Protein backbone atom coordinates (compact mmCIF):
# COMPACT_ATOMS: atom_id res chain seq x y z
CA UNK A 1 0.00 0.00 0.00
CA UNK A 2 2.77 2.38 0.99
CA UNK A 3 4.65 1.52 -2.22
CA UNK A 4 1.57 2.29 -4.32
CA UNK A 5 1.17 5.61 -2.53
CA UNK A 6 4.80 6.57 -3.23
CA UNK A 7 4.38 5.49 -6.85
CA UNK A 8 1.26 7.64 -7.21
CA UNK A 9 2.95 10.66 -5.68
CA UNK A 10 5.91 10.30 -8.04
CA UNK A 11 3.62 9.64 -11.03
CA UNK A 12 1.41 12.66 -10.34
CA UNK A 13 4.42 14.92 -9.82
CA UNK A 14 6.09 13.73 -12.97
CA UNK A 15 2.88 14.16 -14.98
CA UNK A 16 2.48 17.72 -13.78
CA UNK A 17 6.14 18.38 -14.49
CA UNK A 18 5.79 16.82 -17.92
CA UNK A 19 3.31 19.51 -18.95
CA UNK A 20 4.63 22.33 -16.85
CA UNK A 21 8.32 22.07 -17.53
CA UNK A 22 8.17 21.89 -21.28
CA UNK A 23 7.67 25.33 -22.70
CA UNK A 24 5.32 24.08 -25.41
CA UNK A 25 4.68 20.65 -26.86
CA UNK A 26 6.80 20.36 -30.02
CA UNK A 27 3.92 19.26 -32.21
CA UNK A 28 1.72 22.24 -31.47
CA UNK A 29 4.67 24.59 -32.03
CA UNK A 30 5.32 23.01 -35.44
CA UNK A 31 1.62 23.11 -36.30
CA UNK A 32 1.60 26.80 -35.43
CA UNK A 33 4.58 27.47 -37.74
CA UNK A 34 3.04 25.43 -40.57
CA UNK A 35 -0.19 27.40 -40.22
CA UNK A 36 1.64 30.74 -40.38
CA UNK A 37 3.62 29.72 -43.47
CA UNK A 38 0.39 28.61 -45.13
CA UNK A 39 -1.22 31.90 -44.21
CA UNK A 40 1.61 33.94 -45.74
CA UNK A 41 1.60 31.67 -48.77
CA UNK A 42 -2.10 32.47 -49.18
CA UNK A 43 -1.41 36.22 -48.96
CA UNK A 44 1.49 35.99 -51.42
CA UNK A 45 -0.77 34.23 -53.92
CA UNK A 46 -3.79 36.44 -53.44
CA UNK A 47 -2.03 39.81 -53.12
CA UNK A 48 1.47 39.27 -54.51
CA UNK A 49 4.77 40.58 -53.14
CA UNK A 50 4.59 44.00 -51.58
CA UNK A 51 7.12 46.44 -50.15
CA UNK A 52 10.39 44.89 -48.91
CA UNK A 53 9.09 41.45 -49.88
CA UNK A 54 6.13 41.61 -47.48
CA UNK A 55 3.90 39.95 -46.31
CA UNK A 56 6.37 38.52 -43.80
CA UNK A 57 6.26 36.53 -40.60
CA UNK A 58 8.61 38.27 -38.19
CA UNK A 59 10.27 35.91 -35.76
CA UNK A 60 13.30 35.41 -33.54
CA UNK A 61 13.29 31.66 -34.06
CA UNK A 62 16.25 30.58 -36.19
CA UNK A 63 14.82 27.17 -37.05
CA UNK A 64 11.64 28.76 -38.36
CA UNK A 65 13.74 31.05 -40.58
CA UNK A 66 15.84 28.12 -41.74
CA UNK A 67 12.73 26.15 -42.72
CA UNK A 68 11.39 29.16 -44.60
CA UNK A 69 14.66 29.58 -46.51
CA UNK A 70 14.84 25.86 -47.23
CA UNK A 71 11.35 25.89 -48.74
CA UNK A 72 12.13 28.99 -50.77
CA UNK A 73 15.28 27.44 -52.24
CA UNK A 74 13.95 23.94 -52.83
CA UNK A 75 10.60 25.02 -54.23
CA UNK A 76 12.29 27.65 -56.38
CA UNK A 77 10.08 30.42 -55.03
CA UNK A 78 10.82 34.09 -55.58
CA UNK A 79 9.71 34.92 -52.03
CA UNK A 80 10.44 33.83 -48.48
CA UNK A 81 8.07 33.53 -45.55
CA UNK A 82 9.95 34.37 -42.38
CA UNK A 83 12.42 37.15 -41.59
CA UNK A 84 14.42 37.63 -38.39
CA UNK A 85 13.32 40.66 -36.34
CA UNK A 86 16.90 41.95 -36.22
CA UNK A 87 17.24 41.73 -39.99
CA UNK A 88 13.91 43.50 -40.47
CA UNK A 89 15.02 46.19 -38.03
CA UNK A 90 18.29 46.62 -39.96
CA UNK A 91 16.40 46.80 -43.23
CA UNK A 92 14.09 49.54 -41.97
CA UNK A 93 17.06 51.42 -40.50
CA UNK A 94 18.56 51.51 -44.00
CA UNK A 95 15.67 53.76 -45.02
CA UNK A 96 15.44 55.94 -41.94
CA UNK A 97 15.88 59.67 -42.20
CA UNK A 98 16.53 61.86 -39.20
CA UNK A 99 12.78 62.36 -38.77
CA UNK A 100 12.18 58.65 -38.32
CA UNK A 101 14.87 58.47 -35.66
CA UNK A 102 14.01 61.64 -33.73
CA UNK A 103 12.48 60.91 -30.35
CA UNK A 104 13.54 57.28 -30.41
CA UNK A 105 17.32 57.72 -30.22
CA UNK A 106 17.65 56.01 -26.83
CA UNK A 107 15.68 52.95 -27.80
CA UNK A 108 17.35 52.55 -31.19
CA UNK A 109 20.84 52.97 -29.74
CA UNK A 110 20.10 50.53 -26.98
CA UNK A 111 18.84 48.00 -29.55
CA UNK A 112 22.09 48.33 -31.55
CA UNK A 113 24.30 48.07 -28.46
CA UNK A 114 22.51 45.07 -26.95
CA UNK A 115 22.62 43.29 -30.28
CA UNK A 116 26.22 43.97 -31.23
CA UNK A 117 28.24 44.81 -28.14
CA UNK A 118 27.07 43.85 -24.66
CA UNK A 119 26.75 40.12 -23.94
CA UNK A 120 23.34 39.00 -22.67
CA UNK A 121 22.93 37.72 -19.13
CA UNK A 122 22.06 34.03 -19.20
CA UNK A 123 22.36 33.12 -15.55
CA UNK A 124 20.34 34.16 -12.53
CA UNK A 125 21.85 36.30 -9.78
CA UNK A 126 21.47 35.21 -6.19
CA UNK A 127 18.74 37.83 -5.65
CA UNK A 128 16.77 36.56 -8.65
CA UNK A 129 17.17 32.96 -7.56
CA UNK A 130 15.94 33.81 -4.06
CA UNK A 131 12.85 35.37 -5.62
CA UNK A 132 12.23 32.15 -7.51
CA UNK A 133 12.73 30.08 -4.36
CA UNK A 134 10.35 32.32 -2.41
CA UNK A 135 7.67 31.65 -5.02
CA UNK A 136 8.29 27.93 -4.77
CA UNK A 137 7.74 28.20 -1.02
CA UNK A 138 4.34 29.72 -1.67
CA UNK A 139 5.62 33.16 -0.66
CA UNK A 140 5.73 36.30 -2.74
CA UNK A 141 8.63 37.87 -4.59
CA UNK A 142 8.89 40.59 -1.96
CA UNK A 143 9.52 37.94 0.72
CA UNK A 144 12.69 36.89 -1.08
CA UNK A 145 14.76 38.88 1.43
CA UNK A 146 14.07 36.17 4.03
CA UNK A 147 15.33 33.49 1.69
CA UNK A 148 18.34 35.64 0.79
CA UNK A 149 19.05 36.19 4.48
CA UNK A 150 19.15 32.43 5.14
CA UNK A 151 21.44 31.80 2.17
CA UNK A 152 23.72 34.75 2.99
CA UNK A 153 24.28 33.37 6.50
CA UNK A 154 25.24 29.97 5.12
CA UNK A 155 28.79 28.86 4.37
CA UNK A 156 27.52 27.48 1.09
CA UNK A 157 26.53 30.88 -0.26
CA UNK A 158 29.58 31.32 -2.51
CA UNK A 159 29.26 27.73 -3.80
CA UNK A 160 25.65 28.40 -4.70
CA UNK A 161 26.60 31.67 -6.41
CA UNK A 162 29.25 29.87 -8.47
CA UNK A 163 26.73 27.19 -9.51
CA UNK A 164 24.29 29.92 -10.53
CA UNK A 165 26.96 31.65 -12.60
CA UNK A 166 27.79 28.44 -14.44
CA UNK A 167 24.13 27.40 -14.72
CA UNK A 168 24.91 24.06 -13.08
CA UNK A 169 21.33 22.91 -12.38
CA UNK A 170 22.27 19.85 -10.33
CA UNK A 171 24.62 21.74 -8.06
CA UNK A 172 22.15 24.59 -7.61
CA UNK A 173 19.54 22.14 -6.27
CA UNK A 174 22.09 20.31 -4.13
CA UNK A 175 23.43 23.44 -2.49
CA UNK A 176 19.95 24.86 -1.93
CA UNK A 177 18.77 21.64 -0.29
CA UNK A 178 21.90 21.48 1.83
CA UNK A 179 21.34 25.03 3.07
CA UNK A 180 17.67 24.54 3.89
CA UNK A 181 18.16 21.07 5.40
CA UNK A 182 20.56 22.48 7.99
CA UNK A 183 18.21 22.11 10.95
CA UNK A 184 20.16 24.09 13.52
CA UNK A 185 20.76 27.08 11.24
CA UNK A 186 17.13 27.12 10.11
CA UNK A 187 15.81 26.79 13.66
CA UNK A 188 18.01 29.67 14.76
CA UNK A 189 16.81 31.86 11.89
CA UNK A 190 13.15 31.00 12.49
CA UNK A 191 13.48 31.62 16.23
CA UNK A 192 14.94 35.08 15.50
CA UNK A 193 12.15 36.00 13.12
CA UNK A 194 9.21 34.25 14.75
CA UNK A 195 8.53 37.17 17.03
CA UNK A 196 8.04 39.57 14.12
CA UNK A 197 4.41 40.55 13.72
CA UNK A 198 2.47 39.53 10.63
CA UNK A 199 5.21 37.21 9.37
CA UNK A 200 3.47 33.94 10.30
CA UNK A 201 2.82 33.11 6.65
CA UNK A 202 6.49 33.55 5.75
CA UNK A 203 7.73 31.52 8.71
CA UNK A 204 5.21 28.78 7.87
CA UNK A 205 6.39 28.81 4.23
CA UNK A 206 10.01 28.43 5.32
CA UNK A 207 9.12 25.61 7.73
CA UNK A 208 7.13 23.76 5.07
CA UNK A 209 9.96 24.11 2.59
CA UNK A 210 12.44 22.80 5.17
CA UNK A 211 10.19 19.79 5.85
CA UNK A 212 9.90 19.11 2.14
CA UNK A 213 13.63 19.39 1.58
CA UNK A 214 14.42 17.03 4.46
CA UNK A 215 11.78 14.51 3.33
CA UNK A 216 13.10 14.55 -0.23
CA UNK A 217 16.69 14.08 0.94
CA UNK A 218 15.64 11.08 3.04
CA UNK A 219 13.71 9.69 0.10
CA UNK A 220 16.66 10.12 -2.28
CA UNK A 221 19.00 8.48 0.24
CA UNK A 222 16.63 5.49 0.51
CA UNK A 223 16.45 5.18 -3.28
CA UNK A 224 20.26 5.24 -3.53
CA UNK A 225 20.44 2.61 -0.80
CA UNK A 226 17.96 0.37 -2.67
CA UNK A 227 19.91 0.84 -5.89
CA UNK A 228 23.13 -0.25 -4.16
CA UNK A 229 21.36 -3.33 -2.77
Amino acid at each position, binding site marked *: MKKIKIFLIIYCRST*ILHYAERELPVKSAVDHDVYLINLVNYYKHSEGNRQFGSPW*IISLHNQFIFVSDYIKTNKNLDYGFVIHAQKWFNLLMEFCDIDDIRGNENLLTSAIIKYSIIPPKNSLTLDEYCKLLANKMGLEGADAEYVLDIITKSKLKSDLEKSLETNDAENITDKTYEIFANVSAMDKFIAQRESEKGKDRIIQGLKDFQKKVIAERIFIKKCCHLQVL
Partner: protein
Amino acid sequence: MLRKLELTKLFVSLKYYFICFPSMQKDLLEIIPILEGNLNTCREEIHKQIIYTALNSFDKQKIEIREVSSRIKELFGVNYPEEKVAHQLEELDLCEIKFENNIVTLTGNIPQDNNINGVIDPLFNEFMRRYKKHYDIYLDNYLKNTFIKCFEQIVGFIIKSQEINELNLDTIDLKSNDEIIKEILVDFKVSNPDKFRSKLYEFLLSDSENKNKFILSVHQYAISLDLLNRSSDLYTYSKDYPDKGILLIDTNIITSVLCKYNRFHDTVVSMLSLSKKFGFDIRYSRETKNELLRLINSADIMMRVTKSVTKYERKNELITDYLRDASKPNWTEKFIFYNSFENILRTKFEVELLDDPCFEEDKDFSDYILQVYDITLC
Protein backbone atom coordinates in the same frame (compact mmCIF):
# COMPACT_ATOMS: atom_id res chain seq x y z
CA MET B 1 26.51 68.54 -30.87
CA LEU B 2 28.68 66.40 -33.08
CA ARG B 3 29.54 67.99 -36.34
CA LYS B 4 30.09 66.12 -39.56
CA LEU B 5 33.71 67.15 -39.72
CA GLU B 6 34.39 65.84 -36.23
CA LEU B 7 33.06 62.41 -37.00
CA THR B 8 34.99 62.38 -40.24
CA LYS B 9 38.11 63.07 -38.21
CA LEU B 10 37.46 60.08 -36.00
CA PHE B 11 37.00 57.67 -38.80
CA VAL B 12 39.93 58.93 -40.80
CA SER B 13 41.98 58.40 -37.69
CA LEU B 14 40.52 54.92 -37.29
CA LYS B 15 41.83 54.15 -40.75
CA TYR B 16 45.36 54.47 -39.37
CA TYR B 17 44.44 52.36 -36.38
CA PHE B 18 43.27 49.52 -38.58
CA ILE B 19 46.30 49.79 -40.86
CA CYS B 20 48.37 49.01 -37.79
CA PHE B 21 46.32 45.83 -37.40
CA PRO B 22 46.23 44.32 -40.90
CA SER B 23 43.80 41.56 -39.90
CA MET B 24 41.14 44.20 -39.54
CA GLN B 25 42.06 46.07 -42.68
CA LYS B 26 38.80 45.23 -44.34
CA ASP B 27 37.06 47.22 -41.67
CA LEU B 28 38.75 50.44 -42.71
CA LEU B 29 36.45 53.22 -41.90
CA GLU B 30 35.43 56.46 -43.39
CA ILE B 31 32.19 58.01 -42.36
CA ILE B 32 30.04 61.03 -42.52
CA PRO B 33 27.18 61.01 -40.05
CA ILE B 34 23.91 60.63 -41.83
CA LEU B 35 21.81 61.88 -38.99
CA GLU B 36 21.93 65.52 -39.89
CA GLY B 37 20.22 65.42 -43.21
CA ASN B 38 18.53 63.57 -45.95
CA LEU B 39 19.43 59.90 -46.26
CA ASN B 40 20.63 59.97 -49.85
CA THR B 41 22.70 63.15 -49.40
CA CYS B 42 24.48 61.55 -46.48
CA ARG B 43 25.16 58.35 -48.38
CA GLU B 44 26.59 60.41 -51.24
CA GLU B 45 28.90 61.98 -48.66
CA ILE B 46 30.04 58.51 -47.60
CA HIS B 47 30.86 57.71 -51.22
CA LYS B 48 32.84 60.94 -51.50
CA GLN B 49 34.82 60.10 -48.38
CA ILE B 50 35.62 56.65 -49.74
CA ILE B 51 37.01 58.24 -52.93
CA TYR B 52 38.97 60.89 -50.98
CA THR B 53 40.56 58.29 -48.73
CA ALA B 54 41.52 56.11 -51.68
CA LEU B 55 43.03 59.06 -53.57
CA ASN B 56 44.95 60.30 -50.54
CA SER B 57 46.51 56.87 -50.12
CA PHE B 58 48.50 57.25 -53.40
CA ASP B 59 51.90 58.91 -53.39
CA LYS B 60 51.74 59.92 -57.05
CA GLN B 61 49.88 62.66 -58.84
CA LYS B 62 48.40 60.87 -61.85
CA ILE B 63 46.15 57.90 -61.07
CA GLU B 64 44.07 55.73 -63.38
CA ILE B 65 40.52 55.02 -62.28
CA ARG B 66 41.06 51.26 -62.33
CA GLU B 67 43.77 51.87 -59.71
CA VAL B 68 41.32 53.86 -57.61
CA SER B 69 38.76 51.08 -57.93
CA SER B 70 41.19 48.38 -56.82
CA ARG B 71 42.55 50.57 -53.99
CA ILE B 72 38.98 50.95 -52.66
CA LYS B 73 38.62 47.16 -52.74
CA GLU B 74 41.94 46.88 -50.90
CA LEU B 75 41.09 49.46 -48.25
CA PHE B 76 37.39 48.95 -47.67
CA GLY B 77 36.85 45.40 -48.88
CA VAL B 78 34.01 46.49 -51.18
CA ASN B 79 33.60 46.31 -54.93
CA TYR B 80 33.50 49.78 -56.40
CA PRO B 81 33.35 49.50 -60.21
CA GLU B 82 35.37 51.85 -62.40
CA GLU B 83 32.27 53.46 -63.92
CA LYS B 84 31.01 54.26 -60.42
CA VAL B 85 34.40 55.81 -59.55
CA ALA B 86 34.24 57.86 -62.76
CA HIS B 87 30.72 59.01 -61.92
CA GLN B 88 31.79 60.08 -58.42
CA LEU B 89 34.87 61.92 -59.75
CA GLU B 90 32.76 63.85 -62.26
CA GLU B 91 30.49 64.96 -59.42
CA LEU B 92 33.34 66.18 -57.19
CA ASP B 93 33.95 69.88 -56.97
CA LEU B 94 37.43 70.15 -55.48
CA CYS B 95 40.28 72.22 -56.86
CA GLU B 96 42.76 69.53 -55.74
CA ILE B 97 41.26 66.95 -58.12
CA LYS B 98 41.16 67.04 -61.94
CA PHE B 99 39.54 64.21 -63.87
CA GLU B 100 40.03 63.76 -67.62
CA ASN B 101 40.25 60.71 -69.91
CA ASN B 102 39.96 58.23 -67.08
CA ILE B 103 42.98 59.76 -65.33
CA VAL B 104 42.80 61.59 -62.01
CA THR B 105 45.35 64.32 -61.45
CA LEU B 106 45.95 65.43 -57.89
CA THR B 107 47.20 68.98 -57.55
CA GLY B 108 47.43 68.74 -53.78
CA ASN B 109 46.37 66.70 -50.79
CA ILE B 110 42.62 66.44 -50.31
CA PRO B 111 41.97 68.01 -46.91
CA GLN B 112 41.24 65.27 -44.38
CA ASP B 113 42.04 65.95 -40.76
CA ASN B 114 43.42 63.02 -38.80
CA ASN B 115 42.64 64.31 -35.35
CA ILE B 116 40.49 61.94 -33.32
CA ASN B 117 40.00 64.31 -30.40
CA GLY B 118 37.16 66.26 -31.95
CA VAL B 119 34.75 63.35 -31.61
CA ILE B 120 36.05 61.45 -28.66
CA ASP B 121 36.66 64.44 -26.39
CA PRO B 122 32.99 65.26 -25.76
CA LEU B 123 32.24 61.56 -25.18
CA PHE B 124 35.21 61.08 -22.88
CA ASN B 125 34.44 64.27 -20.96
CA GLU B 126 30.88 63.17 -20.45
CA PHE B 127 32.01 59.73 -19.34
CA MET B 128 34.40 61.26 -16.80
CA ARG B 129 31.76 63.71 -15.58
CA ARG B 130 29.46 60.79 -14.86
CA TYR B 131 31.96 58.43 -13.33
CA LYS B 132 34.92 60.55 -12.16
CA LYS B 133 34.50 59.50 -8.53
CA HIS B 134 35.46 55.96 -9.55
CA TYR B 135 38.76 56.94 -11.17
CA ASP B 136 41.88 58.79 -10.33
CA ILE B 137 42.93 60.46 -13.53
CA TYR B 138 46.51 60.75 -12.22
CA LEU B 139 46.71 57.08 -11.33
CA ASP B 140 45.10 55.96 -14.58
CA ASN B 141 47.41 57.81 -16.93
CA TYR B 142 46.05 56.13 -19.98
CA LEU B 143 42.37 56.43 -19.19
CA LYS B 144 41.63 58.54 -22.25
CA ASN B 145 43.63 56.26 -24.55
CA THR B 146 41.82 53.27 -23.08
CA PHE B 147 38.49 54.94 -23.70
CA ILE B 148 39.46 55.73 -27.30
CA LYS B 149 40.65 52.19 -27.94
CA CYS B 150 37.43 50.75 -26.51
CA PHE B 151 35.33 53.00 -28.74
CA GLU B 152 37.37 52.01 -31.78
CA GLN B 153 36.59 48.40 -31.01
CA ILE B 154 32.93 49.21 -30.50
CA VAL B 155 32.85 50.68 -34.01
CA GLY B 156 34.35 47.42 -35.30
CA PHE B 157 31.76 45.34 -33.42
CA ILE B 158 28.86 47.28 -34.91
CA ILE B 159 30.25 46.92 -38.44
CA LYS B 160 30.85 43.21 -37.98
CA SER B 161 27.35 42.67 -36.61
CA GLN B 162 25.92 44.26 -39.73
CA GLU B 163 27.78 41.78 -41.92
CA ILE B 164 26.23 38.79 -40.20
CA ASN B 165 23.86 36.68 -42.23
CA GLU B 166 20.33 36.53 -40.84
CA LEU B 167 20.58 32.82 -40.09
CA ASN B 168 23.57 33.47 -37.88
CA LEU B 169 22.06 36.30 -35.90
CA ASP B 170 22.17 34.37 -32.68
CA THR B 171 25.77 33.39 -33.18
CA ILE B 172 27.34 36.83 -32.90
CA ASP B 173 29.96 36.09 -30.31
CA LEU B 174 29.25 38.84 -27.83
CA LYS B 175 31.34 37.05 -25.22
CA SER B 176 34.42 37.33 -27.39
CA ASN B 177 33.62 41.03 -27.91
CA ASP B 178 33.53 41.34 -24.16
CA GLU B 179 36.89 39.52 -23.92
CA ILE B 180 38.44 42.02 -26.36
CA ILE B 181 37.28 44.92 -24.17
CA LYS B 182 38.69 43.13 -21.11
CA GLU B 183 42.05 42.66 -22.88
CA ILE B 184 42.24 46.35 -23.75
CA LEU B 185 41.65 47.26 -20.11
CA VAL B 186 44.38 44.87 -18.98
CA ASP B 187 46.82 46.15 -21.64
CA PHE B 188 46.24 49.72 -20.55
CA LYS B 189 46.62 48.76 -16.88
CA VAL B 190 43.36 50.39 -15.78
CA SER B 191 43.28 50.26 -11.98
CA ASN B 192 39.85 48.64 -11.68
CA PRO B 193 39.10 47.00 -15.05
CA ASP B 194 35.82 45.33 -14.05
CA LYS B 195 34.39 48.56 -12.79
CA PHE B 196 35.59 50.44 -15.88
CA ARG B 197 33.96 47.84 -18.11
CA SER B 198 30.67 47.97 -16.26
CA LYS B 199 30.69 51.79 -16.32
CA LEU B 200 31.54 51.78 -20.02
CA TYR B 201 28.52 49.52 -20.71
CA GLU B 202 26.39 51.67 -18.43
CA PHE B 203 27.47 54.71 -20.43
CA LEU B 204 26.66 52.94 -23.69
CA LEU B 205 23.13 52.25 -22.45
CA SER B 206 22.73 55.73 -20.94
CA ASP B 207 20.66 58.53 -22.44
CA SER B 208 23.75 60.56 -23.46
CA GLU B 209 22.87 62.54 -26.56
CA ASN B 210 26.45 62.58 -27.90
CA LYS B 211 26.78 58.86 -27.43
CA ASN B 212 23.43 58.18 -29.13
CA LYS B 213 24.43 60.26 -32.16
CA PHE B 214 27.77 58.53 -32.32
CA ILE B 215 26.31 55.00 -32.18
CA LEU B 216 23.52 55.76 -34.66
CA SER B 217 26.04 57.32 -37.05
CA VAL B 218 28.30 54.29 -36.86
CA HIS B 219 25.33 51.99 -37.40
CA GLN B 220 24.20 53.95 -40.44
CA TYR B 221 27.72 53.81 -41.79
CA ALA B 222 27.82 50.05 -41.20
CA ILE B 223 24.58 49.72 -43.16
CA SER B 224 26.01 51.74 -46.06
CA LEU B 225 29.16 49.66 -46.13
CA ASP B 226 27.09 46.47 -46.04
CA LEU B 227 24.97 47.73 -48.93
CA LEU B 228 28.13 48.47 -50.90
CA ASN B 229 29.40 44.99 -50.11
CA ARG B 230 26.23 43.53 -51.48
CA SER B 231 26.61 45.80 -54.53
CA SER B 232 23.23 47.34 -53.86
CA ASP B 233 22.42 50.65 -55.37
CA LEU B 234 22.15 53.11 -52.54
CA TYR B 235 20.20 55.70 -54.43
CA THR B 236 17.18 53.98 -55.83
CA TYR B 237 15.54 52.56 -52.71
CA SER B 238 12.57 54.34 -51.29
CA LYS B 239 10.55 53.76 -48.19
CA ASP B 240 7.59 55.51 -49.78
CA TYR B 241 6.51 52.54 -51.85
CA PRO B 242 2.71 52.63 -51.63
CA ASP B 243 1.93 48.92 -51.38
CA LYS B 244 2.63 47.82 -47.83
CA GLY B 245 1.96 44.19 -46.96
CA ILE B 246 0.90 42.53 -43.72
CA LEU B 247 3.50 41.69 -41.09
CA LEU B 248 2.58 38.70 -38.94
CA ILE B 249 4.41 38.59 -35.64
CA ASP B 250 5.45 35.28 -34.14
CA THR B 251 4.87 34.33 -30.49
CA ASN B 252 8.48 35.10 -29.52
CA ILE B 253 8.07 38.66 -30.80
CA ILE B 254 5.16 39.20 -28.42
CA THR B 255 7.06 37.68 -25.49
CA SER B 256 9.99 39.98 -26.29
CA VAL B 257 7.63 42.94 -26.13
CA LEU B 258 6.31 41.76 -22.77
CA CYS B 259 9.75 40.95 -21.34
CA LYS B 260 11.63 44.17 -20.72
CA TYR B 261 14.83 42.33 -19.80
CA ASN B 262 14.83 40.15 -22.92
CA ARG B 263 17.93 40.65 -25.09
CA PHE B 264 15.78 41.52 -28.10
CA HIS B 265 13.22 43.70 -26.27
CA ASP B 266 14.61 47.03 -27.50
CA THR B 267 15.13 45.70 -31.03
CA VAL B 268 11.60 44.33 -31.23
CA VAL B 269 10.02 47.48 -29.80
CA SER B 270 12.06 49.65 -32.23
CA MET B 271 11.24 47.32 -35.10
CA LEU B 272 7.50 47.51 -34.36
CA SER B 273 7.48 51.29 -34.08
CA LEU B 274 9.55 51.72 -37.27
CA SER B 275 7.28 49.27 -39.13
CA LYS B 276 4.30 51.31 -38.00
CA LYS B 277 6.01 54.54 -39.14
CA PHE B 278 6.62 52.95 -42.52
CA GLY B 279 2.91 52.14 -42.74
CA PHE B 280 2.89 48.34 -42.41
CA ASP B 281 -0.16 46.55 -41.09
CA ILE B 282 1.14 44.50 -38.13
CA ARG B 283 -1.00 41.57 -36.95
CA TYR B 284 -0.86 38.33 -35.00
CA SER B 285 -2.93 35.31 -35.84
CA ARG B 286 -5.37 33.47 -33.60
CA GLU B 287 -3.00 30.49 -33.59
CA THR B 288 -0.22 32.72 -32.27
CA LYS B 289 -2.53 34.06 -29.60
CA ASN B 290 -3.36 30.51 -28.49
CA GLU B 291 0.30 29.53 -28.47
CA LEU B 292 1.16 32.52 -26.31
CA LEU B 293 -1.67 31.72 -23.90
CA ARG B 294 -0.31 28.16 -23.58
CA LEU B 295 3.14 29.58 -22.87
CA ILE B 296 1.81 31.94 -20.20
CA ASN B 297 -0.18 29.15 -18.58
CA SER B 298 2.77 26.81 -18.61
CA ALA B 299 4.83 29.50 -16.82
CA ASP B 300 2.02 29.87 -14.30
CA ILE B 301 1.95 26.13 -13.61
CA MET B 302 5.72 26.18 -13.07
CA MET B 303 5.39 29.04 -10.60
CA ARG B 304 2.30 27.89 -8.74
CA VAL B 305 2.10 24.12 -8.97
CA THR B 306 5.61 22.68 -9.10
CA LYS B 307 7.29 23.20 -5.79
CA SER B 308 10.85 22.35 -6.84
CA VAL B 309 13.20 24.57 -8.76
CA THR B 310 13.98 22.97 -12.10
CA LYS B 311 16.13 24.03 -15.02
CA TYR B 312 12.99 24.90 -16.95
CA GLU B 313 12.14 28.02 -14.96
CA ARG B 314 15.47 29.53 -15.93
CA LYS B 315 14.72 28.74 -19.57
CA ASN B 316 11.27 30.28 -19.55
CA GLU B 317 11.70 33.92 -20.47
CA LEU B 318 8.41 34.99 -18.91
CA ILE B 319 9.63 33.68 -15.54
CA THR B 320 13.17 35.01 -15.97
CA ASP B 321 11.76 38.42 -16.78
CA TYR B 322 9.59 38.32 -13.67
CA LEU B 323 12.65 37.45 -11.56
CA ARG B 324 14.65 40.32 -13.08
CA ASP B 325 11.90 42.90 -12.79
CA ALA B 326 13.32 45.70 -10.66
CA SER B 327 9.83 46.94 -9.72
CA LYS B 328 9.39 43.67 -7.77
CA PRO B 329 5.82 42.71 -8.63
CA ASN B 330 4.46 39.44 -7.28
CA TRP B 331 3.81 36.62 -9.72
CA THR B 332 0.05 37.19 -9.77
CA GLU B 333 0.54 40.79 -10.88
CA LYS B 334 3.02 39.71 -13.53
CA PHE B 335 0.68 36.93 -14.68
CA ILE B 336 -2.13 39.47 -15.09
CA PHE B 337 0.28 41.75 -16.99
CA TYR B 338 1.27 38.93 -19.37
CA ASN B 339 -2.36 38.05 -19.93
CA SER B 340 -3.12 41.61 -20.94
CA PHE B 341 -0.84 41.31 -23.99
CA GLU B 342 -3.66 42.04 -26.44
CA ASN B 343 -4.32 45.37 -24.79
CA ILE B 344 -0.58 46.22 -24.65
CA LEU B 345 -0.10 45.40 -28.33
CA ARG B 346 -3.15 47.42 -29.33
CA THR B 347 -2.50 50.55 -27.27
CA LYS B 348 1.30 50.78 -27.53
CA PHE B 349 1.94 49.48 -31.04
CA GLU B 350 -1.45 49.45 -32.81
CA VAL B 351 -1.01 45.73 -33.38
CA GLU B 352 -4.32 43.91 -33.71
CA LEU B 353 -5.49 40.32 -33.85
CA LEU B 354 -5.81 39.17 -37.45
CA ASP B 355 -9.20 38.12 -38.73
CA ASP B 356 -7.75 34.90 -40.10
CA PRO B 357 -8.99 34.59 -43.66
CA CYS B 358 -10.88 31.52 -44.82
CA PHE B 359 -8.52 29.73 -47.13
CA GLU B 360 -8.19 26.19 -48.24
CA GLU B 361 -5.01 24.74 -46.85
CA ASP B 362 -2.72 23.29 -49.50
CA LYS B 363 -2.35 19.80 -48.04
CA ASP B 364 0.69 18.88 -50.14
CA PHE B 365 2.43 22.09 -49.18
CA SER B 366 1.70 21.53 -45.47
CA ASP B 367 3.02 17.97 -45.69
CA TYR B 368 6.13 19.26 -47.38
CA ILE B 369 6.72 21.81 -44.56
CA LEU B 370 6.20 19.05 -41.99
CA GLN B 371 8.78 16.91 -43.78
CA VAL B 372 11.27 19.80 -43.66
CA TYR B 373 10.56 20.14 -39.94
CA ASP B 374 11.06 16.40 -39.45
CA ILE B 375 14.50 16.69 -41.02
CA THR B 376 15.53 19.77 -39.07
CA LEU B 377 14.21 18.45 -35.75
CA CYS B 378 16.16 15.20 -36.07
